[in-house]
């Protein structure tokens, strides 16, 4: 089947960089004229392409672009925001008048306001976040990536006869941030990924599925579709003929792609927004031992090419590298301007900003520093335990630290991985769990903006039969 390339026919709807910055500046000027004492504008523009192939045939083909503007205005200590996809003069006037009308009903908040002029800035170096090669393949070749990925998974084993498909995605985006205190910044990002989700059938007719993917900012760093497919097949097959286990307490080892969520929980616990409210179990714990001594957690927005990198944060402060936990001691909360003022500290450059709403706090490149042990060495120490490869559901209470999630994985017996396990839960409390990380693997790999090596945690409860 022949696929025509739409890339030849795309009408250049995207406005050039200078124009978006000019648009932002104009909106700020108009907002100030209309009565705002300060204003901040975000303009976003992006393109996306995605295709899914199933059982060798194209299933979906999607390609488009969109853009949006967000405006935050201050009238003294009152703040309000509006967003719109309407770039016409009328749309922008509405954006501004709407924001000012809303600012009349919000309260005077002594902690509200843009950052001080001295705080704004952006990283000088090119962070290598944008590569135009993500769109360089013709459509037929992109479809072929997805097809090859699925085919590799399905040909790996006769027990794999079905599939949820193979996918290829590519996206580019541009973000402009400007404010009335002189900050103007802009950067572009690109992203591509290939993935597949095979389905295997066990001896009793029971089905299992898993997936694997590769993602990168440039096509040249993507793993081959065949290697992704082969790995997806391996992960799916190891779930077959899974059983439940009795309720018990044993050491639990978390695979890297699962352990990530625990490192995410450390970030969430140190999120300034929760800290100043007393809504996190890390409140008041700065300088204290909150995790095992071997734990060092870093958040770094300056890593070249990183999935979580950016030259400036959602408020226009330069991103930076910070140590959140060092030798198990909580060294810093994660803050934006508002929460920094609340806690009488400095922003850590972790502000995140949607189109509308007040800035929140988000991680950049967040990771746990690797240890010395290989995953096999970690397993070898365990007589009886559970190797978790999948977690189901949210089940995490960041106020109390209570943790209870569905799980699948593989039983560890005498230091070796044995039979697959499913339909059980793993539970504990994060306060203890962080302290009971008793082994850290040497297998840290950045496949995402949050990364972790293999982890062993003791003292948790498995609930099953």
């Amino acid at each position, binding site marked *: 089947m022949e696929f025509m390339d739409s890339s030849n026919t795309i009408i250049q709807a995207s406005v050039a960089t200078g124009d978006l910055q000019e648009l932002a500046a104009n909106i700020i000027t108009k907002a100030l004229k209309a009565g705002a004492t300060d204003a901040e504008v975000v303009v976003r523009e992006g393109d996306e392409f995605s295709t899914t192939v199933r059982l060798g045939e194209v299933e979906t083909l999607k390609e488009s672009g*969109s853009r949006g503007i967000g405006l935050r205005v201050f009238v003294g200590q009152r703040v309000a925001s509006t967003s719109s996809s*309407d770039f016409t003069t009328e749309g922008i006037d509405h954006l501004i008048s*709407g924001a000012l009308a809303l600012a009349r009903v919000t*309260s*005077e908040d002594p902690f509200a306001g843009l950052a001080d002029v001295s705080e704004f800035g952006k990283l000088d170096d090119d962070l290598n976040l944008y590569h135009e090669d993500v769109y360089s393949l013709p459509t037929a070749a992109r479809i072929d990536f997805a097809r090859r990925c699925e085919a590799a998974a399905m040909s790996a084993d006769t027990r794999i006869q079905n599939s949820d498909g193979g996918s290829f995605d590519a996206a580019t985006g541009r973000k402009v941030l400007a404010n009335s205190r002189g900050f103007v910044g802009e950067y572009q990002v690109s992203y591509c990924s290939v993935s597949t989700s095979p389905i295997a059938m066990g001896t009793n007719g029971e089905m299992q599925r898993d997936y694997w993917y590769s993602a990168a900012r440039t096509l040249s760093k993507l793993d081959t579709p065949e290697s992704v497919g082969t790995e997806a097949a391996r992960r799916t097959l190891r779930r077959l003929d899974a059983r439940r286990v009795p309720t018990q307490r044993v050491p639990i080892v978390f695979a890297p792609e699962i352990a990530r969520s625990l490192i995410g929980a450390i970030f969430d616990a140190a999120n300034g927004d929760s800290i100043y409210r007393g809504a996190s179990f890390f409140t008041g714990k700065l300088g204290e031992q909150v995790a095992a001594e071997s734990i060092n957690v870093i958040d770094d927005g300056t890593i070249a090419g990183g999935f979580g990198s950016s030259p400036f944060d959602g408020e226009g402060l330069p991103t930076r590298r910070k140590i959140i936990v060092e030798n198990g001691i909580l060294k810093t909360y994660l803050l934006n301007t508002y929460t920094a003022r609340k806690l009488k500290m400095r922003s850590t450059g972790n502000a995140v900003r949607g189109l509308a709403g007040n800035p929140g706090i988000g991680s950049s490149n967040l990771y746990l520093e690797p240890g010395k042990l290989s995953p096999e060495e970690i397993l070898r120490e365990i007589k009886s335990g559970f190797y978790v490869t999948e977690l189901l*559901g949210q*089940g995490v209470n960041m106020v109390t630290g209570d943790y*209870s999630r569905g799980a699948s994985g593989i039983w560890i017996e005498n230091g070796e991985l044995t039979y697959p396990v499913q339909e059980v*839960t793993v539970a504990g409390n994060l306060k203890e769990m962080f302290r009971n990380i008793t082994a850290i693997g040497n297998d840290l790999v950045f496949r995402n903006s949050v990364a972790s090596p293999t982890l062993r945690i003791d003292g948790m409860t498995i609930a099953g*039969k």
Partner: protein
Amino acid sequence: MTTSAGHKRYFFEKFGLSERLLERCLGEALSAGGDYADLYFESVSATSIGVDESLVKSASQGVSAGCGVRVVAGERTGYAYTDNLSAERLLHAARTAALIASGPAKQPVAGFTETHSPNLYPIPAAELDSDLSTKLDLVMRADRAARAYDARIKQVRASYSDELKRILIAASDGTFASDTQPLARLNVFVLANDGKQTTRGTAGGGGRVEISYFLTEKTPEHFANEAGRTAILQLGAVAAPAGEMEVVLGPGWPGVLLHEAVGHGLEADFNRKKTSAFAGLIGRQVASSKVTVVDNGTMPSRRGSLNVDDEGSPTQETVLIENGILKGYLSDKLSARLMNMPHTGNGRRESYQQIPMPRMTNTYMLSGDDAPEDILRSVKRGLYAVNFGGGSVDITSGKFVFSASEAYLIEDGKITAPVRDATLIGNGPEALKYVSMVGNDLQLDEGVGTCGKDGQSVPVGVGMPTVKLDRMTVGGTGN
């Protein structure tokens, strides 16, 4: 009250559309062949106000509009969208979507037939802006009531958000539909602290209602008291038990059990592809004979209801499981056609930027004969769970979870201590076979459900009477 002519007028006037242009776009979409094409126009306006530390810290409003063009050829779907509704960009999107097909052009059906709309929800008379002071008052009342509930309530966050979504759908099979969909929600979140520990409580609700709903039906005080009650309750909570035991679920939001255990697994796309654990089980026993589960998009004013689905088809009440027997799946146009099965009007999408697929609306179990008190009395040792956070499911293996946020131990038929949060896990095609008692007290949830599938979120409703499951695994840490 706006009529369908009013909906049409909105898009035609505001965006300069015309029937002629819609026909041209559909023609362009089928210019390379294909079985079906549709245009989905959407215009959304949303407002939100939040109070925190007794200050109105946030107020925001957003508008967005766009059109998604879909072309279907056999099992293949081509899709493109644009936020610029000029004729030029619409035609370009149609040409992009048309790249999925390659063959001689097809012609759309001549003329449109409008889908009848049952008017399940009121169209707000006023534009969103003018209700601002009323919305402000709602969140301030919620704040005051929550703080006054108990001296141990230390932090309160209340928010009100609403949106008005207008849609217009025109398809090559002659479908023409439009709708104006309000959606509103009030939420209260509190922290309680007794000097030894901090706990949380949350309550919220709403639906496709006008703002008067929160003045007369479910007031800010109602939600504030509920959030306060659950936070204070948690101060005395003990460790949840771990292992398999009898579980009694309270009415209403615990219906999340159905949404996860069977709802997703019965979406037609998964069954067409045979990736669902329920594939091929129509006519078979998948639940106890006391269980009847339906999906109903036609309930007035419910969060999960729709006058028409996002493909312009009428919504309906679909019996999924009847007396324990699997009767049918939830379908959209593509599934119904490819599977040669009844079309249930469950095609939904998060926005004009997304391809529609089968989704739930309001999913609930019908009332049975048992008295709730008898159900509790029948349990020697188990868990009584009345509220949950959310849930999740792997539709291929069938394993599902849902996380209890308010639950109690049952000892010798009596409710004793409240327990800390715990996740329950089960296997979809098996779990409902253990339903041994079904209460006579069906309730729908208060209007808080959001369902995620394949990266797309849509508002949904769930419901259930009090139900006893002879066994389910409870993920606590205690004995």
